[in-house]
């Protein structure tokens, strides 16, 4: 029980923030941002006694509406599969939060606090495994609806998700090679440091002649070590989430709403919410892998604790560091959510063959080339060191 309590507390914290707070609010943000970009006002009418709070009550009104609507199962549909599909779609999205660290490891005397629910040695593999299960929600919902448009949508979804899973895995192999780990909390620690931009010249004995240029540092974040990996991973996870520009499984101009066409009420709401929960998961994942996770650039955990301890004592310093790190993590997550919204409302939807070509003919060769170049650079640096 003593082991279970912290795990439950951490699970509750991340689920309350990600599913309870972020997901509903970003449905509102999405409507407002699209309104701003299209020169409209956006959601602002839902009110309680005349108070609208900028339209922030809309998520609440939406949920009430969805809960009170009739839950229709179409004629000739497979009832059991139709009812269970939205649940299959939502559960993997929530389960992925289990391995994303939203803070580092902190020592208060004898107790150690590790701000991740499950600190798995194979954390990233767990995410890929969980993500591959999510395909079934869409596949089953389309098949069980007894509707040809739904079936077309789920066929599109399954082909798209399986294809992009391959490049998603390959695009982060370069990152494993840089950090030498799959454990997401270790990646956070590895990114909580800096590297000298021209430091590699040291191995060739040139760095002294560079003067101050030799002392310029950058945070050793994944995005700076693997810029191409970041772009490819972002593209792949957005394709996995099936939001515009990769929303061909929904493609309302061709197949009405695709795989969830026959869903109504809260079961539609589950599909809708799982899409937004996935937006938060993606933002968390991008932050943990490429944006330094919880770390503050140029200010490592040791620096913070070392700087504050002489004034306020080590306990306060560690606590302050923990709070700062958690806040930093969520600021970065919000920035990544904004980036996804911006892309979603900027880019038009390509044709289906273009989506598949992008995956197999552009991303796959590029990701393999990325692995090759990363390996070569690592070998060269090791050779120069030795």
């Amino acid at each position, binding site marked *: 029980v003593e082991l279970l309590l912290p795990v439950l507390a951490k699970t509750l914290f991340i689920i309350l923030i990600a599913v309870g707070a972020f997901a509903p609010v970003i449905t509102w943000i999405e409507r407002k941002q699209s309104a701003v970009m299209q020169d409209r006002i956006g959601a602002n009418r839902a009110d309680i006694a005349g108070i609208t709070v900028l339209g922030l009550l809309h998520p609440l009104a939406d949920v009430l509406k969805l809960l009170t609507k009739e839950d229709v199962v179409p004629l000739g549909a497979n009832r059991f*599969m139709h009812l269970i599909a939205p649940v299959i779609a939502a559960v993997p999205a929530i389960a992925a939060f289990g391995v994303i660290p939203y803070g580092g490891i902190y020592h208060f005397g004898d107790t150690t606090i590790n701000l991740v629910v499950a600190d798995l040695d194979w954390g990233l*593999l767990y995410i*890929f495994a969980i*993500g*591959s299960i999510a395909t079934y929600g869409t596949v089953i919902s389309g*098949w069980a609806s007894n509707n040809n448009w739904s079936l077309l949508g*789920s066929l599109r979804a*399954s082909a798209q998700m*399986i294809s992009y899973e391959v490049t998603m895995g390959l695009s982060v192999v370069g990152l494993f090679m840089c950090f030498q780990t799959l454990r997401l909390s270790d990646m956070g620690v590895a990114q909580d440091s800096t590297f000298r931009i021209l430091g590699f010249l040291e191995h060739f004995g040139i760095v002294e002649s560079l003067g101050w240029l030799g002392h310029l540092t950058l945070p050793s974040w994944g995005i700076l070590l693997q810029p191409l990996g970041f772009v490819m991973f972002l593209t792949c996870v957005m394709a996995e989430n099936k939001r515009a520009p990769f929303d061909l499984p929904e493609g309302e101009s061709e197949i009405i709403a695709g795989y969830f066409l026959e869903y109504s009420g809260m079961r539609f709401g589950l599909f809708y919410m799982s899409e937004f929960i996935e937006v938060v998961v993606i933002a968390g994942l991008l932050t943990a892998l490429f944006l330094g996770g919880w770390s503050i650039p140029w200010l490592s955990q040791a620096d913070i604790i070392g700087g504050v301890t002489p004034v306020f004592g080590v306990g306060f310093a560690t606590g302050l560091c923990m709070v700062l790190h958690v806040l930093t993590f969520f600021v970065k997550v919000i920035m990544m959510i904004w980036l996804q919204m911006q892309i979603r409302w900027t880019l038009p939807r390509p044709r289906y063959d273009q989506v598949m070509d992008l995956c197999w003919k552009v991303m796959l060769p590029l990701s393999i080339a990325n692995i090759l170049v990363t390996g070569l650079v690592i070998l060269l640096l090791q050779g120069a060191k030795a």
Partner: protein
Amino acid sequence: VSAPAVFFYLAGAAAVLSALGMVLNVRNTVAAAMNLVVTMIALGVIYVTLDAHLVAALQIMVYAGAIVVVFLFVVMLLNLRRDAFPRPRQRLTKVAAVVIAFGIAAAFLHIIPTALPTVREIPADFGSYRAVGLALYRLFVLPFEVTSLLLLAAIIGAVVLAKRRLD
């Protein structure tokens, strides 16, 4: 009873039940495929309880996440009805099934426990991606490369066959 043991027996029961569900639903193809998915995931959980984490992740990613999706893809496109399959031959199949089931049960209960070597203590990094990767690229490089060549041949064969029909 330790926590891994609880999960082992739960996942084991789920694997057996869903495997039965797949065999009994063989004429309802989508239900059979979904049962197969549950079996794969349950096997993945069993691998986790056995500390084989890489195998667990691959089991779910490759088998549950990709191969069975392709099965479903084909089944849905063919849209097979229940009467598309002939009823199996009753008498002979049943007798054969019972004989084979008893044979396998006997094997598991008697032969295998005595034939297996006694359990030794496993190294600390057993089943991790690190240990498997090192073994794969240091001890088994040749089989690994030969397998990849075989797969490449299969892919080229599939492309050639599909292309011929398109042209």
